[in-house]
């Protein structure tokens, strides 16, 4: 019992040291304050370890801390929080790689969520290629929702990529998501709903670059 207590104190001291290391910036100081506010010692240690690991791997720490605090809000055990953070960390690393070289924190987080529901690695890469210089967090979010609502991954990914290629706005994509959900609620299959509304939005968009509506120009 005493040994356990000693171990806890040693680990807490280490956690405290890591926290100090985090607090180098304003964001770091805010994170430190949030971590310090976690009352359960075991959870606090888990969180500090996970954040430290994320830093080592160049993975954004904000989504991880948010996940931990979600667990705290839901009164989850430290073991559950460790597992959740560990799994998220893996997805964040993967998303970070797939969305390189210019992914924002929100994109990496959205990419990790997309992977969580079963979006394929390849799709994330293609989405980044389709929009290398702007945030695709909304597009990733819409794709995640579509797949989460049982639209087949291949169909959903193709539609989102097609819409991106045609210059669809984020608003058009979120409207698509909403319309699909409404139709599914009305009894349509997710696939038919996506097809119906996806085609509708595509019809409003200009043709992809290099494609004309009429006959090809003579050379």
């Amino acid at each position, binding site marked *: 019992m005493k040994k356990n207590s000693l171990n806890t104190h040693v680990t807490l001291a280490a956690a405290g040291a890591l926290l100090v290391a985090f607090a180098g910036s304003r964001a770091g100081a805010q994170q430190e304050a949030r971590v310090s506010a976690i009352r359960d010692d075991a959870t606090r240690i888990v969180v500090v370890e996970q954040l430290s690991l994320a830093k080592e791997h160049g993975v954004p720490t904000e989504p991880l801390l948010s996940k931990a605090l979600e667990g705290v809000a839901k009164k989850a055990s430290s073991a559950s929080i460790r597992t959740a953070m560990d799994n998220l960390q893996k997805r964040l690393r993967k998303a970070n790689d797939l969305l390189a070289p210019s992914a924002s924190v929100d994109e990496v987080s959205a990419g990790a969520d997309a992977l969580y529901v079963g979006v394929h690695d390849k799709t994330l890469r293609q989405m980044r290629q389709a929009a290398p210089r702007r945030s695709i967090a909304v597009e990733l979010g819409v794709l995640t929702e579509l797949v989460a609502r049982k639209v087949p991954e291949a169909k959903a990914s193709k539609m989102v990529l097609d819409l991106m290629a045609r210059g669809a706005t984020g608003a058009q994509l979120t409207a698509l998501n909403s319309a699909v959900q409404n*139709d599914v609620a*009305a*009894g*349509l299959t997710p696939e*038919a709903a996506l097809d*119906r*509304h996806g*085609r*509708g939005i595509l*019809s*409003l968009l200009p043709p992809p670059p290099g494609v004309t509506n009429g006959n090809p120009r003579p050379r």
Partner: protein
Amino acid sequence: MNEIDASVPLRAKRGEEQAFIEIVDFYYPRCLRFARNMLQNDQDAEEAVQDAFVRVHNSFPRFREDARFDPWLFRILANRCRTLLSRGRRHRSLIEYGEVPVTAAAAQEDYGADWAEEVRVVLDSLPAEQKEAFLLRHVEDLSYEDISALTGVRLSALRMRVKRACDTLRARLTEVGQHDR
């Protein structure tokens, strides 16, 4: 026409939030009906109504205690509808791009709504000022005096607008109306 108790707008003018809630609750259906008829687009209509109520709330300090509330509210709402109309019409039926009928009931409603649809088509073809005058007079049941107060248009001109709207509706709907009987 059914008007809210005159004390309610006065309470709202004094900043009583509950009174404003009563106003929104009471007038929302009528306002939405007018906006839908004017704009022929549910989303635009909801936007116009929401904007109008926010403006009503913000403009209460300027609401004269001896004035009637209905014309004042409709003045603000009509302004919002005009602004949205001038901003350009949205594609009227986005839903139409999918050919899949969502429910059989929807198809039946379409059949039963033929006359109403014809009315809307003709109404939509009217110049905005004629449509507005017609709706305020014959659907919202406002008096010409009230309409004149809220639009700032002289009575004789208003009567002419309503007459022209009626003439067009008669000319274009007579055939449909006969078939529909």
